[in-house]
């Protein structure tokens, strides 16, 4: 099973994402901000990092860029509750693997995105 690190500043989403993904993925860590996310990513070496775009301070795009620089970098999937269309320009530039809108998150969809 692939290991996942969930990063979101809303506790309710972290909880429901954990519930939704734990069937097909192993949740090894959770973080509420970008800095903590990077620290845990280095420590736990997850296969996948699911990260909210709208984090305070270092945002999802920043985390994706930082993680891309690691050796044996994890696959980063961005997520958000805001309108995807507002994010299109940034999504084109990011090294992240893909984007999933929060409300349709499921383990199947994530699996399909990751391949």
């Amino acid at each position, binding site marked *: 099973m692939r290991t996942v690190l969930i990063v979101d500043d809303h*506790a309710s989403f*972290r*909880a429901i994402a*954990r519930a939704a993904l734990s069937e097909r993925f192993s*949740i*090894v*860590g*959770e*973080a*509420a901000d970008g800095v*903590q996310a990077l620290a*845990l990513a280095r420590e736990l070496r997850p296969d996948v990092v699911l990260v909210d775009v709208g984090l305070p301070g270092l945002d999802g795009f920043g985390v994706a860029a930082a993680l891309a620089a690691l050796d044996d970098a994890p696959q980063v999937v961005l997520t958000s509750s805001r309108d995807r269309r507002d994010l299109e320009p940034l999504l084109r530039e990011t090294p992240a693997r893909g984007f999933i809108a929060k409300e349709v998150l499921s383990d199947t969809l994530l699996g399909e995105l990751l391949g």
Partner: protein
Amino acid sequence: MPTGTEPPTRVVIADDSVLLREGIAALLVDSGFEILAQCGTADDLLMIVRSYRPDVAIVDIRMPPTHTDEGLRAAREIRERYPGTSVLVLSQYVESGYALDLLAESAEGVGYLLKDRVSDVREFAGAVRRVAAGGTALDPAVVARLVGSRSVKGPLDELSAREREVLELMAEGRSNAGIASRMVITERAVEKHVTSIFQKLRLPAATDDHRRVLAVLTYLRTG
């Protein structure tokens, strides 16, 4: 009303009942705590503690799969691996054995409360704060059971009614200030009672509140 800007105490809650989790979370948020995460299994609890390093983890003793003592074992593991995180264990019934197991080596940053205790918001919030700060909280019902279970006549009977009360409050993990406000007497009076109790029970003086709890519990258990 705020005295200064102290950061709120960071809490995680582990209980397989979603309703109880949410209830405890709401009640603690209203009292100024920060709830970082909730979960329903011991494994998730360890993952959460590892991820967030909270000040305190509130854990139900019984959790899936076996619903016996998963919470207890997780609590012990947390105390060992993450000493910065205190643990407050919640239980449906008075299980003195489990309580004393939990406090076996150290009472520092450990608590055991009955789920009923949650309904008294002020007491519960106070206990969570105390445990998060490295103190102890032992449910009064457990302490009463321990004190009352002694059938053999001993030095315990030499204590006055007041001293008995102080003894029980000490065993619950309260500080002198907490005991004083609870019994509506002065801290000096509490200190005098404590000294007298320790003398009568022939216990060595304890430096911290949680060491004091250990001393008292050890005495109550073994005699």
